[in-house]
């Protein structure tokens, strides 16, 4: 950096021309570290910034609203190369190039390029405000305008309009072209009455109608929900009260005692011993059926010991229900398996060795003859047992009917004769 330039910079600062970005520290840097600064200036990437050692005329700042557009020079007071934040704060969004003309007559060199996102405000001359009262309604012109380049604040717009609504802000340049537009939703604030009166569009009316109905429905729903909540509260309170009353009621203890006593009584009624409770259907239907099955099983087992084939045939001849029941019972004792094994052993021998079969038959015949009497007695015993079982199931009693002038008396006695009611006329 030349001595002249440094002097210029110092002069500018002293006269207060410098931008606020320059600090005491910057000045120290410039004065005390000049060699280093000099060498850094040679490379674009290491350009010292905020050092305040340029004349503002040496720094050329250009602006584009968007890529491809013609660049315009921006007036500025920077005596150093400003940061992106400083540019954004001062001039707003846009594409900025910063050139530095090191010496008179030489071409300026590009030092920095900033692309700041957002609506550019720099070329904006004025902001015009338009209003839409309802969504879908007419866009109404207003006479409210704000000078550029800085866009107006919300408060400023509302104050100027005298109300809210859907606000459209048009940013216009010096040629009155719209650079950009932005919508702001200020519908939480009542729109100005003068504008509402002008809003006669069908769309807006429909919108208003729909809005009104929507609000009505919403109010209705809210009302119902609130009422239900009230009801719930009252019912809940009632339930709590009842619960407390019930807990406090000593009758509950008595009820519990009664239930326990009843349960014990039911269980102890079976032969005076405590047993597992038996259902009525078990007592009425399953138990008798089981007893009959047990009796038949005993008969079949006895028969199977003497004549397995006959026993197997007997099982097959039985009705389905009994057969299944018996088979289940017998399977437990392994009798079915034993019978099947027996038949399997006998079958092949019969086919392969006829003589052996004959011998076997003879042997069995001889054995049958030997055991004939014994077997007969066992069969008789089994039959007797079955009869006994059936007999036990029929506790018949004798009924003697004694009648006189005053009425009738039935006298019951254990079975000793016929089961007909004997009619006796008592004198």
């Amino acid at each position, binding site marked *: 950096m030349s001595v002249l330039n440094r002097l210029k910079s110092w002069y500018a600062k002293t006269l207060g021309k410098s931008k606020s970005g320059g600090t005491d520290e910057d000045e120290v840097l410039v004065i005390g570290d000049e060699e280093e600064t000099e060498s850094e200036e040679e490379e674009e990437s290491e350009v010292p910034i905020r050092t305040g050692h340029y004349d503002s005329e040496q720094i050329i700042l250009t602006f584009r609203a968007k890529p491809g557009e013609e660049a315009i020079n921006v007036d500025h007071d920077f005596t150093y190369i400003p940061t992106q934040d400083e540019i954004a704060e001062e001039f707003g969004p846009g594409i900025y190039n910063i050139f530095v003309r090191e010496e008179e007559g030489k071409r300026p060199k590009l030092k920095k390029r900033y692309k700041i996102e957002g609506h550019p405000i720099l070329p904006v001359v004025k902001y015009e405000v338009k209003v839409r009262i309802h969504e879908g309604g007419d866009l109404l012109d207003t006479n409210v305008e704000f000078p550029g380049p800085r866009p107006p604040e919300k408060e400023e717009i509302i104050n100027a309009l005298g109300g809210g609504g859907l606000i459209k802000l048009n940013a216009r340049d010096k040629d009155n072209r719209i650079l950009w537009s932005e919508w702001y939703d200020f519908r939480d604030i009542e729109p100005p009455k003068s504008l509402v009166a002008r809003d006669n569009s069908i769309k807006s009316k429909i919108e208003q109608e729909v809005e009104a109905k929507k609000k009505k429905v919403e109010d209705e729903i809210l009302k119902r929900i609130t009422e239900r909540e009230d009801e719930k509260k009252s019912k809940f309170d009632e339930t709590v009260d009842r619960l407390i009353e019930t807990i406090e009621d000593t009758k509950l203890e008595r009820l519990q005692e009664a239930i326990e006593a*009843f349960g014990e009584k039911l269980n102890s009624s079976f032969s005076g011993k405590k047993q597992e409770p038996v259902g009525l259907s078990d007592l*009425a239907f399953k138990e008798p059926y089981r007893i009959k099955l047990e009796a038949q099983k005993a008969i079949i087992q006895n028969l199977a010991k003497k004549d397995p084939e006959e026993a197997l045939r007997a099982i097959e001849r039985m009705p389905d229900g009994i057969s299944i029941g018996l088979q289940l019972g017998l399977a437990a004792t392994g009798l079915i398996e034993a019978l099947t094994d027996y038949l399997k052993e006998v079958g092949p021998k019969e086919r392969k060795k006829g003589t052996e079969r004959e011998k076997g038959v003879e042997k069995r015949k001889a054995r049958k003859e030997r055991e004939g009497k014994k077997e007969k007695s066992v069969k008789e015993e089994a039959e007797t047992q079955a009869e006994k079982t059936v007999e036990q199931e029929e506790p018949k009693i004798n009924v003697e009917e004694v*009648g006189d002038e005053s009425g009738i008396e039935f006298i019951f006695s254990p079975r000793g004769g016929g089961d007909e009611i004997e009619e006796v006329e008592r004198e």
Partner: protein
Amino acid sequence: MNKAKKPKGWEKFLMAALTSNKFAEYISTANLADLLKTALQVPGVKKKMTETLTQLGGDLKERYEIVDYSAYADENKYVIVLNIKSNEMRDDFVAHFQRFIKDLRGRFELGFDTFIKSYQISSISCKNDGHVVKIEVHTPRSADIESVASEIQGLVR
């Protein structure tokens, strides 16, 4: 044997149950009132029983002009006293009771016998006793019968 109606399906089941030794053994030791309570817990039984008993009681009361009735248990008998004003009606009731017991035995046969035996009922009498009709069930288990009767009264009430 007294000619009776052909038993229905459920009656056959009941007979099969009543004819078993196991049931006889059970009923001879069980508290019949508890058994009745258990039966009443079966869905629909209580309703059906209440309806039947109420209907039967109403019919009997109307048919035989029963003014009121009372019941009590002695040591060896359970007694029901029916207040029937007309002598003719009292006689009619006695005749009705006679037919009822015969019909009951005819329909339930062994079941009836088992019940009588299990409850150790030595006799049942029904007599026109002047201004009232007295039914006496002679059994040492009169207390059990009283508790059953109490349960039944509870249903009809």
